[in-house]
């Protein structure tokens, strides 16, 4: 064991890893929020509840259908994404021409309802979800012990984030999305069914949240309030990165996870507030966020 700035390397790398894990979830969740905000101009306050639903979907699939982690990784986002499609069709679509505040109120209310329902049925103590067998254990890297599942979470989150970025910034379909974000009326007059794109975009953003939920299930307990605990931090991440910027959401998510981890090592008292302090500073200096476009 060696020391860096008087800190044992084990502790330092341990917190860095924890930071990267948290950052993986921050990135996935703020990416979903950014995608939804770009297209719908709605700040999706249901996002935390949808993340929680993803975790519960994995849990319930295992309990009642014997469907394990790997299939759940695909099925849960599809199921919860489909509920997102229904929410967009039933509710959000009707709010499109109103002040964005209505969308915020609606999604906030939905989050409360959904979390209340889950708390009624499942109580508020966490339910356990096992790490899949193939990812049990870990490896000794010499300077630290790396649990396999945590490594997998970081890799998968990074891969999904980059694939989403590529899909939006570099593909034909993505160019429709960018264009419709900029000027939906004209894109529609070019023969593209924008309302359907909006619906699917919301479904996709929700599916990202659900995917994060499945990934989180073996790390944190599956519980009705797991989303509301996390989402507050994620909103701060989004504010720091800048609403609507895809790469901004990803980079900020990972970076702030790491910053938070490092704070735990060097100044533990501030670890719960450091992100909000950064948010306050960013709001003062660059109100549009680090990656946001002004105007």
């Amino acid at each position, binding site marked *: 064991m060696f020391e860096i700035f008087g800190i044992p390397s084990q502790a330092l790398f341990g917190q860095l890893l924890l930071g990267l894990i948290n950052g993986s979830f921050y990135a996935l969740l703020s990416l979903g929020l950014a995608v939804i905000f770009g297209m719908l101009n709605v700040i999706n306050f249901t996002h935390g509840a949808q993340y929680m639903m993803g975790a519960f979907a994995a849990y319930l699939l295992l309990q009642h259908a014997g469907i394990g982690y790997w299939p759940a990784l695909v099925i849960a986002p599809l199921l919860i994404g489909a509920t997102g499609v229904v929410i967009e069709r039933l509710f959000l679509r009707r709010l499109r021409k109103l002040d964005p505040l209505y969308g915020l109120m609606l999604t906030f209310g939905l989050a409360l309802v959904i979390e209340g329902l889950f708390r009624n049925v499942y109580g508020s103590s966490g339910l356990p979800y096992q790490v899949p067998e193939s990812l049990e254990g870990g490896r000794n890297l010499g300077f630290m012990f790396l649990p396999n599942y945590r490594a997998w979470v970081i890799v998968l989150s990074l891969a999904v984030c980059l694939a989403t970025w590529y899909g939006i910034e570099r593909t*034909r379909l993505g160019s429709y999305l960018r264009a419709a974000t900029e000027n939906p009326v004209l894109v529609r007059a*070019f023969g*593209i069914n924008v309302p359907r794109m909006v619906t699917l975009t919301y479904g996709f953003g929700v599916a990202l949240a659900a995917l994060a939920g499945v990934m989180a299930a073996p790390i944190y307990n599956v519980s009705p309030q797991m989303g509301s605990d996390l989402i507050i931090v994620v909103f701060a991440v989004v504010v720091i990165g800048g609403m609507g910027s895809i790469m901004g959401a990803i980079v900020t998510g990972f970076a702030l996870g790491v910053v938070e981890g490092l704070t735990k090592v060097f100044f533990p008292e501030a670890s719960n507030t450091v992100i909000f302090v950064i948010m306050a500073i960013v709001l003062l200096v660059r109100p549009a966020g680090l990656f946001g476009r002004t105007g």
Partner: protein
Amino acid sequence: MPEAPALLAVKELEAWYGESHVLHGVTLDVRTGEVVTLLGRNGVGKTTTLKAVMGIIESRTGSVRFEGKELIRLSSDAIARSGIAFCPEERGIFSSLDVKENLLLPRQVRPGGLDLDRIFALFPNLRERLNSQGTKLSGGEQQMLAIGRILRTGARLLLLDEPTEGLAPVIVEQIGRTIGALKAQGFTILLVEQNFQFAAALADRYYVMEHGRIIDHFAAADLKASTEKLHDYLGV
């Protein structure tokens, strides 16, 4: 000359921006292969007419028939897919898309649209700028891009809103030649234009608008005889 059937027949078109009633029964038609120009002062409803035909303004009544098919209840994406393409006054170049993505954005609605090579033949500048951000182009290039991209769609009826606005004379000339070439290729064009000289070189017929209504209508052949009236209408 026998009357060709109208490709686009607009009847008693009324339209509203929120509470304000902006079109009061516009009736006009455009026949296959024609260039028809809407004239009138600023704010008389020319752009609104194009947008109402295109379904961009959703609160509208009356009748818009294209190839005999009623469009008034369709959404603008469905109207585009039935074969009409729209080039807006503000050009609508997307800043988050490069030139190529801008070109490829409008959906191909019918076979027979121009391929990229033929679009570059009309607008050679675009070929060199394919990877530039759409809004980094000059005003003239943006207008070429705005027209070029709707030629790909296969739509045979083009609604062009003030294609020469704010452009240098040499660019205006080039746009004029292009519209002439498009006409020769069989495109049908409904044009809104403030630049009367420009329109006069291209149009087969004119409609004059005032206060959301069509107040006069004449063919290119009668242009000379109508000059005085026109000066009155347009206040030039």
